[in-house]
């Protein structure tokens, strides 16, 4: 599985592929200029993730070579700033936590473990590992949006408010699991969401739009995409809704930034866009399909991006 990710502002795109490289492009104004070609992995690179810009220009990549590499741009050049080798098997997914929590990276691996790297300063990263998170392997990780319990009062001494950190993971045990950080800093499995009948390929926790509900999308080898919603603030009852059953593996699900559209990409050569309607039904609004090469009419596009 290969990946591409836009940075926060939509100005840069990072792509990774089986040729072991991570490429960064400048995509402003519809252009496509290669900025960097990062080499360091010894196997196909599965996923890339941009950190929040307040930490600088930081990119994480994970690969079949069991490594997670964190790259940083210093003085205009991209360099490897950290390498994490704590896994015994391919690392399949990386996801940065909401910036409010600090610089924290979650990594899911085929060895069934999930590791959490926290930047503690001076180039040091602290590692916490959740062993046997999923039997056989973990395929995807996705963080919940930051929600502050109570009101956000200014803390003049610079203390961070008490966030409840959570993330979701999907694995080869057909399960979606929700993890929560306890007060002692240890991570505990909070929920087990069962609905899929085959490997869970991707999970995506929807951005928050201020409503008390939480929403997670999961997709699987069994061709199904489920939307999980939790209405109560304590986060205890999750109910699944089947979005659609596709005819082939569904690889990737992703929410638009205001969480009003879910994009789903599957093995049937399509990317479909889905939107929730007022009465809670999910409707497919578009099919972005791969062409077979022929174009019958062409519309002249006189518009170029203007400054």
């Amino acid at each position: 599985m290969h990946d591409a990710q836009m940075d926060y502002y939509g100005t840069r795109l990072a792509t990774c592929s089986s040729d072991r490289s991570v490429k960064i492009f400048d995509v402003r104004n519809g252009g496509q200029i290669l900025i960097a070609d990062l080499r360091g992995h010894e196997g196909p690179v599965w996923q890339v993730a941009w950190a929040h810009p307040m930490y600088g220009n930081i990119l994480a990549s994970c690969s079949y070579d069991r490594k997670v590499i964190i790259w940083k741009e210093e003085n205009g050049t991209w360099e490897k700033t950290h390498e994490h080798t704590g896994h015994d098997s391919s690392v399949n997914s990386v996801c940065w936590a909401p910036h409010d929590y600090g610089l924290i990276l979650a990594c899911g691996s085929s060895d069934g473990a999930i590791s959490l790297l926290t930047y503690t300063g001076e180039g040091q990263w602290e590692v916490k590992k959740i062993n046997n998170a999923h039997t056989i392997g973990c395929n995807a990780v996705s963080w919940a949006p930051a929600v502050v319990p109570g009101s956000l009062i200014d803390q003049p001494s610079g203390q961070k408010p008490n966030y409840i950190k959570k993330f979701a993971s999907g694995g080869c045990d057909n399960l979606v699991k929700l993890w929560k950080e306890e007060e002692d800093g240890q991570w505990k499995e909070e929920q087990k969401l069962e609905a899929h009948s085959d490997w869970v390929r991707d999970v995506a926790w929807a951005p928050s739009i201020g409503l008390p509900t939480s929403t997670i999308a999961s997709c699987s080898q069994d061709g199904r995409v489920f939307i999980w919603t939790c209405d109560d603030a304590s986060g205890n009852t999750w109910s699944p809704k089947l979005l659609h059953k596709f005819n082939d593996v569904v690889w990737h699900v992703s929410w638009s930034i205001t969480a009003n559209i879910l994009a789903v990409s599957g093995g049937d050569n399509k990317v479909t866009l889905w939107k929730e309607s007022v009465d809670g039904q999910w409707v497919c609004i578009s099919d972005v399909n791969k062409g077979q090469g022929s174009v019958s009419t062409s519309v002249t596009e006189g518009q170029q991006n203007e400054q």
Partner: protein
Amino acid sequence: MRGCSRQRLIWQKGYCEDRLPLAQFSLTRCRGQDGGTRVECRRVVAMAERRGPCGIGGFGPAGSTGGARAGSSLATGAELEARARSFGGPANSRWLRLGAMEELDGEPTVTLIPGVNSSKKQMCFDWGPGEMLVCETSFNKKEKSETVPGCPFIYIIRKDVDVYSQILRKLFNESHGIFVGLQRIEEELTGKSRKAQLVRVSKNYRSVIRACMEEMHQVAIAAKDPACSCQFSSQVSILSAMELIWNLCEILFIEVAPAGPLLLHLLDWVRLHVCEVDNLLADVLGSENPRKHESFWKLPGTTQTLTELELKWQHWHEECERHLQDGTFASSPHLESLCKIMLGDEAALLEQKELLNNWYHFLVTRLLYSHPTVKPIDLHFYAQSSLDLFLGGESSPEPLDNILMAAFEFDIHQVIKECSIALSNWWFVAHLTDLLDHCKLLQSHNLYFGSNMREFLLLEYASGLFAHHSLWQLGVDYFDYCPELGRVSLELHIERIPLSTEQKALKVLRICEQRQMTEQVRSICKILAMKAVRNNRLGSALSWSIRAKDAAFATLVSDRFLRDYCERGCFSDLDLIDNLGPAMMLSDRLTFLGKYREFHRLYGEKRFVDAASLLLSLMTSQIAPRSFWMTLLTDALPLLEQKQVIFSAEQTYELMRCLEDLTSGRPVHGEPDAQRLQDDDIETTKVEMLRLALARNLARAIIKEGSLEGS
């Protein structure tokens, strides 16, 4: 604006008594690197009424500009049920029950991306702010790329391309002013003048559309490239159609013209849009029988009542009929047909079809001659029959026709829906719906969504603006006037604006601060502070971290400042540090930095006693980091060496204690031995000097304090 095939967002409206759930589609565009774009458009709309589905294609001559005019395929009942069931569960029973009545046209719109390596199964994608990016995962070996060989093939699917049009930008800018003005005067809109003011607002919007049309028309004429010219012309026709629709809505929904004036408004409406042809007709009519027309043209509604109007007209009508029957015009078939026209004879009118551009022109002409005092509620009968007669079964209605028909039927809901489907940009429906909402029409038409529909459309429109590097500022105001989700949408969008210049950053910050979006302010300031540190602009970094109230970062930057001082012996950005004020309290390190600088200032002003106590307090209060103590003690040396005694005995004891503290508790650093020995040497010398100076000062202080009492 595009009149040709696109896709639109579906949203389903909730139930409203007999209303069924609706769906609309959002259109996304696909632009290929090789210039070609996608093809197919099988568009689907789940309808509320039993109205037939609209075809796709643009207004005017469009249809041919790229959109496949694929007829919509009606799904059978069985297919409907299957689809409904797959949406999951018994909760869907509403769908199932209504499934048979609904007409689901088929599959959602398909966008094909040409030139993609289809042998590779998977296509990856990612969302960008405002647009979706799709990229091919395998390298496109066929394409000779100019950039770097072997680049993946990237497609950008934009949600809204119209924001990039230079001319349309004026439309967006000016209509934004009208929109904001309307929201602001809402409270002042009362009583009788309310309607007049709303009509004025409507006319303002229309004049903006016309201005844009004019400009685009000029550009179309001036364009050298015929393809460009054609494109601009089609945009002109779309704008014209928009103005046509808006004008009709103004007459029927906002002006709410009663019978009598209604026809006059409609006459104006038609004249405005078909003026060329109307002139011809007027010539034909006017030249033949001016006298017969005088009495009619003198009938403006205000001075006479409806009944008086009707009577006059009846009288005139009967006179005409008599002339016809008497064979007054028998000698001239031309005059005879003219008379028939004036009597509203449909057949005669239709004979002059070339002069009538379209069915609504035909409608108004018909009404003019047969039912000039038509009431608004009766309009749709005539409209429908006019449409049928005019088309004569040869062609089917186009989207524009359906929209106008819906307006004549006073079905606002349908008008908005059809416009949403036909147009490529949310501009039109968002502003029109907002205005109609101010006219309190959305509630009165019993829509379940009600004013929520207004908000929905405004949100979609505003989101589209955020994709643009400067139009996003307009979007902010639109979000402000969306009470439910406007704020959170703004919060999510505003953080994604690239802060390419300091001015832009300040602009964004101001917007956030005005709305008390403290989280966003903090986040943006942190980003800017980080940027500044990376560019070695410490002063800027410090001020951003103060604004972000980011203690950790402030500490980091303060450390850098102190390190700089140690290396260079002077401070940079003195102004900033001197004027920290209460911000100094943000972090201990920052406080220390500020106080330390104050120490230097006091020293420079020769206020040695104050400087001395400050220096001491920096150590005793533990504000100073231990690593800095040596520097501080060294700074104390000149004060100890002064002629007059500055440090009191008490203070000297304190200093000595600090020194001993420092020297005794020194941990072993992992430095190479040679360096350490050398450093130790320097350190030892320093310590010795200090001890000596302190001892001497202590002696002098004791003597001074002892003798004070004596002298």
